[in-house]
């Protein structure tokens, strides 16, 4: 939450010689962060971020209280001005409506009737300040409530007293039944969901949506003569529920859902009465009604000095501890030299455990006064299983060096892209609350996303891309199976793309790749490891593009950081080419394996050239210890020709010499 505070308003509560710039710097280091200073209407206006646990700072007074402690600690001459406590004569001219509280939901109700309201324009200074804090100006009777809330921090409400009385003069605090209509003061109609707290009259009509927004039927308007000025301390959970259920996120709701100090209600009421008397010529027409059945007591927190030192790494003197905490409004009770008990002020319900107290000590002492040091403790050595970050980085760098572009695409995809994975739409995880239509389903394949990237880069027709990212396979009653995939997509030929994958795997000393077609457009990729074929993923033909989807968790265990050294052959190899013609749709990968199977002296077979149906292979023959003569190669050559002729209807081009 952010709050705007004009400098001069702050100075009504704070006596200091610090400049706005210094206030910004010092508060930001030890307290609420002053994110910006605007110049508005001739003075500095602070834009301050107040964290959700510090609703006590969401007011001019709250910031002044923090600033007084922080500026003083920094050596600035600073004093917090005492809070005025206006007194007035009360009477019983107009009766307070009949109030039926439910103390389970409402800790305190305080109210007073003010008569003779004159609808004067908002006075100049008040209007200036409300404008500076980006609030609209109405008239004094309405603006006083906003002004007081901003100044002191407790939301408050002005009812039209006569409207309340006409509706029966009864205010009941009730947990709403579902389906009841109410219209807020800005004329919006709502229906209760059930369980939110409302005020009803004795006819069951909703006459207020308390702590969140007033209703039209009891709101102050130009004809209002008498006001019921009202503050309630509703259960924070109930405020949160009501506000979130109807998406009514008023400032009042945002404060009231964070446990505003109920003790703050009376000073706010007294200040408001003072302003109504001053600017609307209002008369006090009743006693102060105050229903505060069980005023909350703050629980003391026991802290050891040892714990303070554990968090800070230095020891604070007892006197420093006492001074800091007292300046923040706490009472400090030393049980012995090493243990103290802290009772926070009522506006600090956030202080409940020792770490909370230590935070107060540390920030006021100054985080910037603590030294900086790296840990001297043992380095943990238990590594997680299945972590292959180094491999991922190497793969990325290698592919990039070969000319492939790494991309990051969204994990959430549109229905159309989701379907391109080949999985039915109902076998995808779907977001309940997507932000945009193109990001609704958790993808089960990265390939369609990469396909989209290539489509979107038409000016780079030769672009090849890859991504290492998760896909998400639903599992009933469990987390989805998140599978890290290495996905590649290229417009290059199949041989070129496959060559890149093979070269990549060779970096990790994998050479035996088997690709087995499973359909017209897909084939499984396997790696041989210890005579076992392990499937690592698939290759897919997407029109004129070739894609690979490799499962990292299957690939990773097969990768090696070093090869197994092969003793160098003592003899020179013999290399030769043979060209065969094959019928169309002959699987050349299997032909290659067949050539290799002709003799164990065939060390390598490479497909050198393809011309129409002619395929030229380069064979390397070698014997580990002796040089082969061409007479020794001859029978092997014959065997190859025989195998290819018989098994594949191959026809040797040329003749054997």
């Amino acid at each position, binding site marked *: 939450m952010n709050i705007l505070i004009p400098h001069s308003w702050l100075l009504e509560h704070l006596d200091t010689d610090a400049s706005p710039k210094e206030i910004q710097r010092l508060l930001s280091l030890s307290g609420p962060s002053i994110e910006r200073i605007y110049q508005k209407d001739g003075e500095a206006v602070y834009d301050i971020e107040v964290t959700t646990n510090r609703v006590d700072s969401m007011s001019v007074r709250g910031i002044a209280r923090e600033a007084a402690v922080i500026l003083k600690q920094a050596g600035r001459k600073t004093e917090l001005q005492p809070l005025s406590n206006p007194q007035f004569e009360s009477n019983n001219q107009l009766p307070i409506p009949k109030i039926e509280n439910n103390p389970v939901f409402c800790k305190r109700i305080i109210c007073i009737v003010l008569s003779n309201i004159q609808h004067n324009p908002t006075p100049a200074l008040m209007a200036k300040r409300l404008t500076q804090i980006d609030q609209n100006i109405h008239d004094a009777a309405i603006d006083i409530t906003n002004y007081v809330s901003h100044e002191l921090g407790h939301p408050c409400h002005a009812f039209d007293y006569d409207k309340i009385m006409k509706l029966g003069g009864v205010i009941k605090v009730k947990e709403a039944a579902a389906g009841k209509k109410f219209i807020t003061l800005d004329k919006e109609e709502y229906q209760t969901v059930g369980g939110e707290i409302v005020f009803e009259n004795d006819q069951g009509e909703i006459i207020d949506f308390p702590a969140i927004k007033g209703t039209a039927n009891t709101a102050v308007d130009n004809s209002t003569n008498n006001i019921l000025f009202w503050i309630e301390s509703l259960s924070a959970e109930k405020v949160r529920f009501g506000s979130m259920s109807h998406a009514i996120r008023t400032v009042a709701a945002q404060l009231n859902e964070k446990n505003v100090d109920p003790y703050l209600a009376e000073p706010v009421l007294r200040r408001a009465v003072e302003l109504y008397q001053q600017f609307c010529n209002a008369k006090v027409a009743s006693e102060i009604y105050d229903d505060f059945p069980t005023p909350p007591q703050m629980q003391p927190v026991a802290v050891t000095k040892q714990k303070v030192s554990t968090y800070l790494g230095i020891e604070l003197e007892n006197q420093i501890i006492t001074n800091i905490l007292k300046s923040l409004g706490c009472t400090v009770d030393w049980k012995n030299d090493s243990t103290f008990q802290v009772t926070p002020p009522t506006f600090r319900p956030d202080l409940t455990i020792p770490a909370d107290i230590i935070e107060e000590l540390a920030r006021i002492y100054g*985080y910037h006064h603590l030294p900086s040091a790296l840990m001297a*403790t043992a380095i943990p050595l*238990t590594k997680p299983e299945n972590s292959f970050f180094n491999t991922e980085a190497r793969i990325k760098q290698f592919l990039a060096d070969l000319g492939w572009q790494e991309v990051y695409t969204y994990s959430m995809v549109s229905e159309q892209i989701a379907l391109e994975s080949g999985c039915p739409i109902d076998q995808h*995880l779907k977001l*309940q609350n997507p932000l945009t239509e193109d990001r609704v389903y958790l993808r089960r394949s990265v390939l369609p996303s990469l396909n989209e990237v290539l489509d979107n*880069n038409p000016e780079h027709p030769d672009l090849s891309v890859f991504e290492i990212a998760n896909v*998400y396979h639903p599992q009933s009653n469990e987390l989805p199976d998140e599978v890290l995939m290495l996905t590649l997509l290229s417009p290059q030929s199949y041989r070129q793309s496959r060559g890149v994958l093979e070269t990549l795997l060779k970096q990790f000393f994998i050479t035996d790749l088997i690709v087995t077609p499973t359909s017209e457009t897909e084939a499984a990729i396997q790696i041989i490891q210890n005579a076992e074929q392990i499937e690592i993923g698939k290759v897919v033909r997407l029109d004129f593009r070739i894609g690979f989807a490799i499962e990292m968790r299957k690939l990773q265990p097969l990768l090696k950081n070093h090869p197994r050294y092969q003793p160098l052959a003592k003899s020179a190899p013999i290399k030769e080419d043979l060209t065969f013609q094959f019928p169309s749709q002959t699987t050349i990968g299997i032909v290659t394996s067949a050539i290799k199977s002709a003799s164990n002296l065939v060390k390598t077979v490479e497909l050198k050239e393809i011309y129409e149906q002619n395929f030229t292979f380069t064979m390397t023959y070698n014997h580990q210890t002796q040089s082969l003569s061409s007479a020794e190669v001859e029978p092997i050559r014959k065997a190859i020709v025989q195998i290819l002729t018989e098994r594949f209807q191959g026809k040797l081009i040329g003749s054997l010499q």
Partner: protein
Amino acid sequence: MTLDELKDQIKTIQLQFETETSAEGLRTKYLGKKGLFNLLAKSIGKVDLDSRVKAGQQLNFLKAYLNNKITQKERQVQANLPWLDFTLPGLKPKVGHVHPISQAMAEITGIFERIGFTRVRYPEVDWDWYVFESLNMPPNHPARDEWETFFVDTPVDQKKGKLVLTTHTSNGQVREMERLGSQPPIRMINIARCYRRQQDATHTQMFHQFEGLVVDKGINIQHLKGTLDYFAQEFYGPGTKSRIRPFHFQFTEPSFEVDFSCHICGGTGQVDGNKCKFCKSGWHEVGGAGMVHPNVLKAGGIDPEVYTGFAFGWGVERTYTLKEGLNIDDIRLLYSGDLRFLEQF
């Protein structure tokens, strides 16, 4: 053989060389294993003993002479090569690029690994328990408003709650404690994709965070400061400082906001008397940190009376785009797949 006879033969070889017209084969003919020089050199054994030193000198002279002359002739041959235009532009091999986020993550990983952190990976789609509740954020807590959470449309688990896209890498905190059997020491760095329901020039629905978690006996705020300072200097360069300021998170106590000093103005907010345009205040806010809340340690099975710890978590995009001179003004480009952007990295 007398010394004079040797000299005569040297002269003969020199004269013969002068008649050569082509550079080709000269080195083999004169200086090769069976070349003229070696043939003559073998005859040194026949020279009188008292003249042998001088004979050796003569031979050395001949060898140097031949070597120089042959090299000269070879150079002349090279001079006949076609003219080379050294001003021609290079023909570059086509290379791709590692995505800037991968580059940043690799750098961040390296920095933290050097001080003993272990990189981990945890689910991107996780239970509410790990993302919020175990982090001291009960259901419907107002603090949850800060995380614009995507929910997955699946049945709610009785114990672990809804299935959500991780809004931060902090779901790794309790998971890491569990992985180590609740036995510190812990020095975790968790870098992962995260998701929030927001999209503009500085936010994307998908982004990346890195999360540090250190738990051990005696871990204090100074260690957090030390780690932040170390990272700032390694990532942004020497002299970069860090600072922590009070903040609030449910899962840390105390909690901090982390700023790094601006490397353009050195943290002063001023360049040549003008306001620094890069930072405006001397500091860049990068993320959150804090001492691990006792309830979070308890949720991970660790006794907060024995152990303390700190945690921090920042956006990779934010941290990276603060690098000097990078000037990325719209982080949506990172995930656009637009080559015109990506090929610049």
